């Protein structure tokens, strides 16, 4: 199974995916990896970067998995949480639209310090194509905080 790794933190997930035997050279499903936060000044650019990659995937009739850090879901950083939730909502909207064309789209919420769980979840998603429009949490909860 081939895939295309993209996003600013693609190289952090690459070893774990390769260990699982996934060919991470394109073409193939888009795996967009964003583990770090952003600033309010960069929020628009950051989200637009994801959009352009997801749009290219749609044009080529490819699936999308967006991988984000748990810090972007329930952290304290305003711009970071805006980014994380925007990527979740954007991916779900992408999936809802592209399901009609046979594409699937999902989000994996990862613990950045321990990416094997996230890699396994990504591999399962793109190989099984069993679910779409879902948010899957993979990895340990670092903060023990109840998710809002």
């Amino acid at each position, binding site marked *: 199974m081939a895939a295309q790794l993209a996003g600013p933190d693609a190289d952090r997930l690459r070893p774990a995916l390769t260990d699982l035997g996934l060919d991470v050279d394109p073409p193939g499903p888009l795996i967009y990896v964003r583990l770090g936060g952003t600033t309010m000044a960069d929020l628009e650019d950051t989200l637009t970067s994801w*959009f352009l990659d997801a749009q290219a995937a749609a044009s080529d009739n490819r699936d999308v998995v967006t991988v984000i850090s748990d810090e972007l879901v329930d952290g304290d950083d305003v711009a970071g949480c805006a980014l*994380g*939730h*925007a990527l979740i*909502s954007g991916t*779900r*909207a992408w999936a809802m*639209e592209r399901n009609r064309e046979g594409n699937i789209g999902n989000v994996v919420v990862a613990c950045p310090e321990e990416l094997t769980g996230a890699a396994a979840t990504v591999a399962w998603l793109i190989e099984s194509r069993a679910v779409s*429009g879902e948010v899957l949490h993979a990895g340990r909860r670092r903060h023990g905080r109840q998710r809002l």
Partner: protein
Amino acid sequence: MTSSVVVTGAAGGIGRAVVTRLARNHHVVATDVVAEVSELGADNVTPVVADVTSGHGRLEILAAAKRALAGLVNVVGITRDSLVNKMSEHEMRQVLRVNAAGPIEMSLAAADAMGSGGSIVQISSRSHLGNIGQVNYAASKGALIGATQALARTLAPRIRVNAIAPGLIQTPMTDAMPPDVLDKLVGRIPRGRIGHPSDVAAMVAHLLSQDADYVTGQTIYVCGGRSI
């Protein structure tokens, strides 16, 4: 009337309903980029034509508060719907800037101005759960929900921050829909009717009030049960 509340996006249907509702108990700074916002002017409503996406605009809006700032309601929002393959980068950026970056920056600026505490309400949308032709809009409204949660944590206990996710609300756009299309949409709503801007305004008033003093970081769906 001891406090001021800022309402952005005040000239639209929901914005007007929110201004009308809040003006019963507050001085309201009603702001929008369009001149029509001036129609809302009254003894306790100060209209301001300004842009929340600019730092200068935000300062202008906050300067219009006549009393201690106790609330901010971000209603501002636009749609630029298009299928993902046809959506332009400009349409993506414009929606993100107006619907997400502007309101979040406005929230941060208003929080600084709320000396003795207050309440912020973001008008998100049920579309943050995903909607065909709305990748940009969904992302922008999801951003508001993420920001709501982070702001609620970082501004606590001084300021409460919540979001409202309206479902199908009556607007000029829904009024223009063919009746059979609208009936089909309404048929999916457990409450059995379309929402009205006043439904959203009532929830805004509640979240700004002392009755909601123990509520923060939440997203309330005002959608007639459509999200269940």
